[in-house]
C-alpha cells in the first residue's frame, strides 16, 4: 500500500486495528484471514467469456477496476468509495475501502430498471469495488451483481454496497459470488428502507476459500419490508462467515431473513445474526432463520441467531437447525424410482431453492438456480 498518500480516510485506516480474536463479532471466525496488511493492489484486468445476457437488463462489465462496457441513464461510474461503515466487526476493512476504492457504480432511479453488473477478477491482489443503489420514491429496480474469476490467482475482493430505498421503492438485488477457490471475498452491505419500501436481497456464495460478509439492514419507515436471503454452498476447505443485523428503527416494520447453507467436504459456515428492535418500534415483525444441511462428516456449522428486543408489541422469532438430508424424503424419492444419489442431490437443491424462491422473480430465480446447479455439478 502506498505510504505517500494521506487523507482523513487513510488516517482513520491507520488508526484502527485489524480484527482480533477478542472481538465478539469475530467469535468462531478466522480473524487472521481479515488481516490484509501484506496484500498488494491488483493489476490490470483481462477479458473473458461473459455469461449469457439477461433479457431487458443493461449490462456493465468491469475488468478488475476498469469499466469496459455499459451505459444507462440511471447509472454513473464512481471513482472513489462512498465511505462504508462497518458495524459488525470490521471497521478497519471499511476504512480500507473508504481510503482506497477507486471504482464502482451509482444507480439512481425513480423508474423501472434492470441493471446487471459483472466484475471480472483477474490476477493476484486487492480489488475494491463500490456500489450505491438509490431507489427513489416509487422506483422498481432490479440489480444483478456477479463476481467471476477469470483465472486461478488468489485475488482479494473487498466490496461495499449501500442500498437506499425511498418511500414505496422496490428493489430486487441478487449477488452471485463465483470467484475461484484461491480467492478471498469480503462484503460490507448496508441497506436502509423508508416507509412502504420493499427490498429483496439475495446472495449466492459458491466460490472463494474464505468469505466474510456483514449485512446491515435498517427499516426506518412504517410498512417497510426487508427480505434478506442467502444460499451458501461451501465445499473442501471453504469457509463462509456471515454476520447480519436486522435493525427496526420505526413502528410497523417487517424484516425476514433466510440463510440456507449446504455444506460439503470440509466446508465451514458461521452465521451470526441479530434482530434489533428499537425502543418504541412497536408493531415490528421480524424473523430470522438459518438452516444448515450437513452433507459430510467433516463439515462444520456455527450458528448464532440473536434477538435484542426493546419494545413489547412485537412478533419476533428466530430458528436455526443443523441436520443431514431427511431419510424420510430420500425414501420417498427412491420409492418413486429415483436413484439414491440423484434423490440426495434433488433434495439438497430443493433446500437451496426454497431461499431463492423468496425473491419472487422468475428471471433472478433462474439465474440463481443456475449458479447453484453449477456448484452441485462441481461438487459431484
Amino acid at each position: 500500500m502506498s505510504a505517500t498518500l494521506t487523507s482523513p480516510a487513510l488516517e482513520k485506516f491507520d488508526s484502527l486495528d485489524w480484527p482480533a480474536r477478542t472481538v465478539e463479532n469475530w467469535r468462531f471466525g478466522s480473524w487472521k484471514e481479515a488481516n490484509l496488511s501484506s496484500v498488494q493492489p491488483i493489476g490490470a484486468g483481462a477479458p473473458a467469456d461473459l455469461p449469457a445476457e439477461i433479457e431487458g437488463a443493461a449490462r456493465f462489465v468491469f475488468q478488475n477496476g476498469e469499466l469496459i462496457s455499459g451505459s444507462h441513464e440511471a447509472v454513473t461510474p464512481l471513482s472513489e468509495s462512498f465511505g462504508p461503515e462497518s458495524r459488525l466487526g470490521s471497521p478497519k476493512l471499511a476504512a480500507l475501502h473508504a481510503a482506497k476504492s477507486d471504482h464502482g457504480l451509482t444507480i439512481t432511479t425513480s423508474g423501472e430498471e434492470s441493471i446487471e453488473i459483472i466484475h471480472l477478477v483477474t490476477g493476484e491482489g486487492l480489488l475494491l469495488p463500490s456500489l450505491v443503489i438509490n431507489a427513489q420514491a416509487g422506483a422498481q429496480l432490479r440489480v444483478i451483481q456477479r463476481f467471476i474469476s477469470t483465472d486461478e490467482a488468489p485475488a482479494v475482493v473487498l466490496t461495499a454496497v449501500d442500498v437506499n430505498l425511498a418511500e414505496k421503492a422496490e428493489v430486487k438485488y441478487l449477488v452471485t459470488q463465483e470467484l475461484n477457490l484461491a480467492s478471498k471475498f469480503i462484503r460490507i452491505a448496508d441497506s436502509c428502507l423508508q416507509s412502504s419500501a420493499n427490498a429483496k436481497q439475495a446472495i449466492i456464495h459458491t466460490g472463494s476459500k474464505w468469505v466474510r460478509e456483514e449485512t446491515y439492514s435498517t427499516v426506518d419507515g412504517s410498512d417497510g419490508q426487508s427480505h434478506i436471503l442467502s444460499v451458501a454452498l461451501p465445499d473442501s476447505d471453504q469457509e463462509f462467515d456471515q454476520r447480519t443485523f436486522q435493525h427496526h428503527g420505526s413502528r410497523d416494520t417487517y424484516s425476514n431473513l433466510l440463510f440456507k447453507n449446504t455444506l460439503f467436504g470440509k466446508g465451514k459456515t458461521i452465521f451470526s445474526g441479530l434482530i434489533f428492535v428499537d425502543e418504541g418500534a412497536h408493531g415490528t415483525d421480524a424473523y430470522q432463520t438459518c438452516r444448515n444441511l450437513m452433507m459430510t462428516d467433516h463439515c462444520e456449522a456455527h450458528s448464532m441467531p440473536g434477538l435484542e428486543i426493546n419494545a413489547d408489541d412485537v412478533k419476533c422469532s428466530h430458528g436455526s437447525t443443523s441436520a443431514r438430508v431427511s431419510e424420510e424424503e430420500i425414501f420417498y424419492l427412491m420409492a418413486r424410482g429415483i436413484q439414491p444419489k440423484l434423490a440426495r442431490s434433488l433434495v439438497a437443491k430443493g433446500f437451496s431453492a426454497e431461499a431463492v424462491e423468496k425473491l419472487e422473480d422468475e428471471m433472478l430465480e433462474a439465474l440463481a438456480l443456475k449458479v447453484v446447479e453449477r456448484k452441485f455439478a462441481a461438487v459431484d
Partner: protein
Amino acid sequence: MNSETATVQQVALEKDDIGNFSFPENHKFDAGYGLSKDTIDYISKVKNEPEWVNEFRHKALEVFESKPMPTNWATEDLNAIDFDAIRYYLSDGATPKRSWDEVPPEVLETFDRLGVPEQERAFLAGVEAQYDSEAAYSNVKEALADEGVIFVTCSEGLKEHEEIFRPWFGKVIPTGDNKFSALNSAVMSGGSFIYIPKGVKVKHPLQAYFRINSENFGQFERTLIIADEGSEVMYMEGCTAPKFETATLHSAVVELVAMKGAKIQYITVQNWSSNVFNLVTKRGLAHEDAEIRWIDCNIGSRLTMKYPGVVMKGERARGEVISIALANDGQHQDTGAKMIHAANNTTSNVISKSISVGEGRSTYRGQVHIPKHLKGCKNNTECDALLINPKSRTDTYPAISVKGNQHVTQHEASVSQVSQEMLFYMQQRGLSETQAMSLAVNGFINDLVEEFPMEYSVELKRLIDLEMEGSVG
C-alpha cells in the same frame, strides 16, 4: 409518582417481605472488608483446613485477580461490584448443628419464618440451612445415612470424605473457568457435599437453604454432588436475603457428577432481594446413560448470570435445562444453558421461558457444542420470551456449533406479548385485568412449573402472581 409505579413498589415490598427481615449481627468470626491473601488464610484457619485446600485457594485468588471482568460480552452493571466493600467470611463457627434445638435462637427464628424446619418434617430427606458463610444446621434422615448417603457441608466433605471428594472437586468446573468461579474457589465456604452410593434411589428431595443476614457481605457456597452408578437424587435449593441499601454478592459454584446410569435433578428457586448480584457457575458431568437435569427458576436478584451446563461424557448421556426467569424493574436475569456433547448418541434439551415486566430485562445465552467424530447427537432448544410492558426488554444470544452430518440440532426462539384478544376474553368472563394477566403469564410457563415438585410449584405460582400485580393498568 403515578399510581402504577406506586403499586409496583408496594408489590416489591410485599414480595421482599418473604425474606425481608434481618437480625443484628452476632458473628464470632469476621474476615473483615476486602479480599487479600490474609483473608484466605483467615478463612482456612477458622475452618481448620488441610494444606492442599489453602493452596487451592491461593492459586484461585491469583486467577481471579488476573482475569478481566467479562464486560466484552456481559453487562456493564458488573462494574458496579466493589470487591473492597464486601466481607468475605462471617460465621458463628464452622460446624453445623444436627438438631434445630442447638441452633442459636435468631437463626432458628429466621429459618422458621422461611418455613424450612416445617418442610423438612413434611417431605424432605435431608436439609442444610446456611446462614451467611456457614451452615447452621445440617441433617439427613437416618434411614438414608444407613444406606450410605452422605449429605454434609462442603467443608466436612473435603476433610472427612477426601477419598471420594477430592477426585471430582474442581474437575467439572476448573478454577479458571471464569472470573467468578475463581473468586468462589478462593473464598468458598458453606454449600453441600452429597454422595449417593451405587443403586441408591433417594425418594424424597434433599434441600439446601441459603440465607444472607448481613449487609456488605458475599456468600460463596460450594456444592459437589456425586451420584454413583445407577443412583438417583433430587436436590433443591432456595435462598433469600433482606433488602439492604448496598449491593450484596452471591457467587456459588456447583459441580454435579452422575456416574453410569445415575440421575441427578437439581432444582433452584432463586428469590434473592433486588440488591443481590447473583453470579453462579453450575455444571454437571454425565457419564454413560446418566441424566442430569437443571430445573431453574430466577425471580429475584439485581443481576443474575447463570448458565447451567451439562457435559455429556458417556454414550447415551442426557442433559436438560428447564429455566424460568422473571425480570421486573431494576432486574436483569441473564440466564441460559451450556450443552457439551462429548460422546456418541448423547441428547440435550433446553427449554427457557422468560417474562420481562416493567423495565426488567431478561437475556438468554446458550451454547451447544457437538464436536467432530461423534454421531447421533441431538439438541433441541426452545426459548420463549414474554414482554409485558412497553419498556420491557429481552435478548437472546445462542451459539450452536455442529461438526459432521450425523447429528440433529434445532433451535427456536420467539418473543411475544400477551394478546389483547386473550385478555379481553378473560375480562369479558369477569376477571380483572391483573387477574387476566397473571393467568396468562402462569399459562405461559405452566408446562415448566409442572417440572418442579408440587411444594415448590405452588410457591412459584404465588411469587409470580405477586410480581404481576401492578404490572398492568
